[in-house]
């Protein structure tokens, strides 16, 4: 990980104990891609890793929570996966009961609002998308809308949390294609979606995983059924087909160069200062051109 020490030290933060940085990490149940065994979801584990580093470096308060079906807990797939997160060094984790097929949105909204006790800086971290179920990656967007907080996707690093003029801000690095990074400053509270390029999650150890407490929580919010989930047929995900590059090279050198070259994006256009309608129009046109929409 390339966290420069200067950026850590520059924080004016969270040293004041009343103003401790408060981090909620939303974790889901992952599946191994070959064996489908339950385990921590990779992106969520990276989110937790980021949070734990903030805890170790600047004493942030880390709470992890999972929304999922209650019922038989001991020995369940969910428990196995949640213990993986505990094994990273958490003492406890909240498991919010949600009946099968219900939407996690309202429950998370209530849970996060309830946690908003102090005026201190607040972050919510989660992986960009779940490894099973819909896996659309839309949840943080919807959550940020319902909470009225900012959402930054594809975050790889939280560089700083500082207050200015009575408001808290965080400086984060966002991943762009091909290893590029963009530094963003966001007003808190905010949701950060963690990218696959963020630091590798630490090893999950057996002892802390076994000791960690899973705290069950029932919320008042009336549960809303997740209609899209009910209507969608679910099938195992397959890797997305990639477009083949056709290389007409006569010698090995050219073939090698073509194989090693980065995909250059050709065509396309950058739209700036356009109305939402114009933007949507352009996206639709592109999708039609590519044959995605007919």
């Amino acid at each position, binding site marked *: 990980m390339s966290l420069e020490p200067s950026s850590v030290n520059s924080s004016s933060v969270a040293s004041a104990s009343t103003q401790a940085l408060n981090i909620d990490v939303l974790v889901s149940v992952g599946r*191994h891609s*070959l*064996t489908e*065994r339950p*385990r921590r979801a990779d992106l969520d584990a990276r989110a937790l890793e980021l949070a734990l580093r903030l805890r170790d470096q600047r004493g942030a308060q880390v709470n992890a929570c999972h929304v999922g079906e209650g019922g038989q807990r001991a020995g369940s797939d969910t428990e196995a996966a949640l213990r993986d997160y505990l*094994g*990273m*060094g958490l003492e406890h984790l909240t498991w919010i009961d949600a009946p099968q097929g219900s939407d996690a949105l309202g429950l998370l909204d209530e849970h996060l609002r309830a946690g908003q006790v102090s005026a201190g800086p607040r972050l919510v971290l989660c992986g960009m998308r779940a490894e099973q179920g819909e896996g659309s990656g839309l949840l943080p967007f919807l959550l940020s809308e319902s909470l009225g907080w900012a959402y930054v996707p594809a975050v790889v690093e939280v560089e700083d949390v500082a207050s200015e003029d009575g408001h808290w801000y965080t400086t984060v690095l966002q991943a762009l294609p091909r290893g590029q990074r963009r530094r963003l400053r966001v007003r808190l509270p905010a949701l950060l979606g963690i990218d696959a390029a963020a630091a590798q999650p*630490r*090893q*999950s*150890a*057996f*002892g*802390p995983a*076994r*000791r960690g407490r899973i705290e069950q929580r029932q919320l008042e919010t009336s549960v809303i059924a997740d209609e899209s989930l009910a209507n969608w047929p679910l099938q195992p995900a397959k890797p997305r087909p990639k477009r083949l590059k056709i290389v007409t090279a006569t010698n090995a050198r050219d073939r090698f160069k073509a194989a090693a070259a980065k995909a250059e994006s050709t065509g396309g256009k950058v739209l700036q200062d356009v109305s939402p309608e114009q933007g949507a129009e352009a996206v639709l046109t592109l999708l039609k051109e590519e044959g995605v929409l007919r």
Partner: protein
Amino acid sequence: MLNTLLPMLLLAVLALAVVGAARRIALWRRGRPSPVPVLAGLMAMPRRYLVDLHHVVARDKVFANTHVATAGGFVAAAALLLVVYLVPLPGSVETVLEVLLLLFSATMFVGARLVAKRRRHPPARLSKGPWMRLPKSLQAFSASVFLIALANLGLLPEGLISGVMGWALAAVLLVALGLGLAELLLGMTWGGPMKHAFAGALHLAFHRRAERFSTRKSDREGKVHRSTGLKALNLEDETAPLGVATPEDFTWNQRLGFDACVQCGRCEAVCPAFAAGQPLNPKKLIQDMVLGMTGRSDAAYAGSPYPGKAVGEHQGNPSGPIVVEAGGALLDADTLWSCTTCRACVEECPMMIEHVDAIVDMRRFMTLEQGQTPGKGSEVIDNLIATDNPNGYAPAARMHWAADLSLPLMRDLGQVDVLLWLGDGAFDMRNQRTLRALVKVLRAAGVDFAVLGDEERDSGDVARRLGDEATFQRLAKANIATLEKYRFQTIVTCDPHSFHVLSNEYGAFGGHYRVRHHSTYIDELMAADRLSLRSWKGGSVTYHDPCYLGRYNGEYEAPRRVLTALGIELNEMQRSGFRSRCCGGGGGAPITDIPGERRIPDMRMQDVAETGAELVAVGCPQCTAMLEGVVDATAQVRDIAELVADALVSEDASGKERAARPQVVEVSP
């Protein structure tokens, strides 16, 4: 004057020694409990010393004789000294005893001279420091006792024992004896080079692996006495500790064992990691465990350090962590992760110290509690958890290598003679060649065998050596449950690691099997005349003993018999048999990959090169991979199974028809 002062001196020394012993025992007892039969242990101790310990010491003939003279002389002389001066005896008896005293102190003096001679240009493996003064103390003691006995027998010239001369001589003798007694008796229990005698004797009596030692019964029955399987952790009890974090987390008899170390450095001399310049020296490791008990710094340690780590920068804490990430505690983590668990140190240790147990105990804590398995360790563990194999391949792909062999599956047959255990080598293209060769041999011999196919899982060997006892136990239990479904007589495997785990470590979980390494099994087939083989025409050949076959399981002969039966005249390496040097592939060492100055497999291929052999026969997928990975090697690496398969007379021995009519094999060309 001598006759009044001497008993007082002896009594005082004895009393002080007893106080020291009590303190030392209390120190050991601060470890975790480990129940041992106290009386039976004490009774067995003399035999363990004279037979098992001496068996190891005797590998160095010259020093063994030195030790017998010095130690034997000392024990006898000290006992006589006490009897003569503390027990009132009739004159005639006393004279006899004095004569004996003369004899034993003289023997001891000769031994002490030899010790002194060895210390003049000590080999690097020996510790210096206080050990350098030991020969002087030994000589002072034996010489003074000798002279005292002479004087008492009235054999000293009159002029020496009367008047001023007499006073002077008495003073000199008393001082010399006092110094000798301080080193030899007080040093035993208060710390010093002689501590090894006191702790060593008790260590033999209360050893954590009593089954290591021969008994009269085991000798009569010709049974092996070997104990190499790791001890299981109790994972059922959530409060039971997971490995060792502080010096006090070792069992009390492990702590006692550390104290028994004589710093002879035999372990250091054979340790492949030390030779490769990795930061591990088994002798220093044991000494650090001793320092940990009292919380001292290693500044006074006078032997070879961990390569690349200066002495004096580490400090123990009796109940504090042994390893701290920032360093400076008793040990650095890379020391623990350099070990290949090759057991060369344990095999050589005259004090029967169990280095590998201690190392794995500390690794367990780092993996199970701290999640700090270095290098690719955590990735391998994750793969084992998710896919039951260390490289994360799809479990369903385990049999892809044999798609054309139509291997019989246990699932279809239910009962066979031989269950062929493939091991994770089934995923490795190099090892697949070995497996194909082994299948060819089994078919040629008409063996009724089957494989588990994708029901097989990793044996758990690597997980366990990396300290992940939880994953090991899960895999072990799963494999045992699978094996329980089927009936077979023998498990045959070409992987010594699986072999060791299946035969020595599954027992604790209810899995008891008859397991054979493929070399042993091929040897049995040859003895039963079930294979007909062409004789060897290639160049000169040497054989590399895999640690997990040799030192772990005592199988040195079968592979050699097979090779000899092929008509190969073995060109042995200097380090072979129980002294074989590790290939560097065990204990997860290639996974944790701690950097050193050299690579262990390079050194091993150098050993091969020194024999001038063109081919090195191996019997382990791990050794094959490590040795074949050496660049510019002078020798080819082939598994025994491949050599046998190549020598099979009927080359068409691949199809099923072959297995159906094995008698054809009997026809010689």
